[in-house]
């Protein structure tokens, strides 16, 4: 039984990372209505940017480096949207084109990371922390901080969506862009802000993934991508709260299964969940009408 609870604890950590990533992807999808296939590489680039601040120049504390990394990724995402994705989305009314462009962007970004930092694993410079028993769980300090960060972000996103003008505009746009535009919402500005948030969360998720797995590789984001997709589809594409719930479900499922099957396949469990969701509830557990 203790093995189960230990796995449950690891599951909560994975769920925390996954939730940050899934919310970032979902926010952007809700507004622009196309999937960003380069999202995993946004994560990797964010992780490496934080690595630069943490281990190559300035030698900042990892948490401060993480904030720098995610803000830079936010700006990067805005630029990518401004000069690449949004022109394609405006020009072609079929989603094929912009999807292929994001797919190509993923190839370019992955190889950019490879050519700058090489294929070797990197580790953040941070103090080693021993694992301690906390209740039935076995966690270290960094994992607990990651969980707290994740909960804080979820609360922040929730408050933003429900109480601020920006959040309300975002929800309106994701329901019906044309209607939002005619109601006087500056859709371009909202799109830009959303890309900033999405890029920031991607950078943050990439860095905390590197912290919890205690290494970063150029392909780590890309390999994590289908787990994010699983969380997003299980939760219902475009639904922010669905993405949070999906992240918790998939995070727990992958880690708990690792206690019973060969851990090499633990991420593939996410795909099994995805397939079952598609078979029995194709719109996801928390589907919004008209989005599937």
């Amino acid at each position, binding site marked *: 039984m203790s093995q189960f609870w230990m796995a449950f604890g690891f599951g909560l950590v994975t769920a925390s990372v996954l939730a940050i990533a899934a919310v970032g992807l979902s926010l952007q999808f809700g507004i622009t209505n*196309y*999937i960003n*296939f380069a999202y995993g590489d946004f994560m990797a680039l964010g992780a490496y940017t934080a690595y630069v601040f943490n281990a190559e120049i300035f030698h900042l504390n990892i948490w401060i480096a993480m904030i720098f990394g995610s803000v830079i990724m936010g700006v990067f995402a805005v630029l990518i949207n401004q000069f*690449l994705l949004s*022109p*394609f989305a405006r*020009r*072609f*009314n*079929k*989603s*094929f*084109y912009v*999807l*292929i*462009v994001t*797919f*190509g*962007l*993923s*190839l*370019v970004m*992955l*190889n*950019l990371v*490879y*050519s700058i930092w090489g*294929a070797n694993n990197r580790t953040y410079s941070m103090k080693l922390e021993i694992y301690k028993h906390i209740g039935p769980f076995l966690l270290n300090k960094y994992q607990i901080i990651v969980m707290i960060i994740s909960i804080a972000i979820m609360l922040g996103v929730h408050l933003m969506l429900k109480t601020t003008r920006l959040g309300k505009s975002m929800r309106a746009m994701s329901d019906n862009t044309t209607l939002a535009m005619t109601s006087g919402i500056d859709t371009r500005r909202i799109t830009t802000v959303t890309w900033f948030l999405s890029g920031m969360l991607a950078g943050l998720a990439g860095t905390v993934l590197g912290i919890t797995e205690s290494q970063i590789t150029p392909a780590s984001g*890309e*390999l994590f*991508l*289908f787990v994010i*997709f*699983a969380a997003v*589809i299980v939760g219902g*594409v475009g639904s922010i709260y669905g993405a949070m719930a999906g992240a918790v479900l998939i995070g727990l499922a992958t880690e708990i299964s690792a206690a019973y099957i*060969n851990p*090499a*396949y633990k*991420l*593939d469990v996410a*795909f099994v969940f*995805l*397939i079952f969701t*598609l*078979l029995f509830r*194709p719109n996801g557990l928390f589907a919004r009408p008209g989005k*599937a």
Partner: protein
Amino acid sequence: MAQFWFYVFTLVFFLFDYFILAMGLNIQYGETGILNFAYIGFVAIGAYVTGAVSLPNSVGTAQQYIFGFNLPFPFSLLAGGVAAMLLAVVVAAITLRRLRTDYLAMVLISLSLVLYDVINNYVRLFNGADGLYNVPQPMAGVLHLTSNAFVVFFACVTGVISLIMWAGMSRITRSPLGRTFRAIRDDPDVASALGKGVFRYQLTSMLIGSFYAGIGGGLIIQFGGSFNPTAWLPGETFVVFAVIIVGGVGNNVGLLMGALLVETLLIHLPAFLPDIPGHAGLIEYIDAMVIGIMLMVMLWFRPQGIIPERVRHFALPAGELLNRDGHSVEAPPETMNNAASTLSASETHEGDRA
């Protein structure tokens, strides 16, 4: 000198092989509008199965794999094609019926990553991360070919196979089946309103495309004698997309052109360049970035590709209908004309309209 021809015919082989792969993806994406981001997975299954059935039984060898039937050449290749089709049936049954284009793409890219993960980790299937090797070179023993002569011989065999498959593909794209595919690509709702079972046609298209993927993959393992997970990283799918988009979506001649430009000139030629000292693999990374950027530039400035899809006109001149003998008759019923113009409108490719 022999070395030089070895390189040239290696390039020729990859040109024809990627022509086959491009035709397979083109019928799925270019003709039917299925954004198959898992395409390289089907290629890999074709390669692995071709290799595993042509190898002898794995007991007593250093490798682990299933099958091991020692099948001779054309049959092993066909087995690879059929295996890829079987995968397509399973995938299509789960995903095609209910999903919008972009969800489908999400699920397929996930499938590609999971397939990669499982084959890499489950050693008993296709020898895991080491992949299959020592796959017998087809007919090299019978014809007493040296390894250089084999490259020339097999490049020509691949050329012949690709021509046969080209002929088959041209028949399909010109047939009513091909027209229905294009109608579904341009607007699935209109196609289904005209009584076409969209799912059935998409499934057919997936099957045809996967067969081509399997054959193309099988040829790769027969040519090189080995195949392992580094040969089919998920990004490889993008290369095939680049081939068809650069060459011209929906145009088989364009695909050959795309295969020449992207696969031969951009991927395999730089592989012969010497490495930059101290930066192992840098050329490869820059190469991949160049392909990605080139594709975006191409999509923006010439989305129809180098050789665009022919715009096909099937509508009769306004107010005319043909009678049974092929002569035009009077009296144009309004509805007939509308249906005809819908079909002809559906023949215009998206890129031309934009």
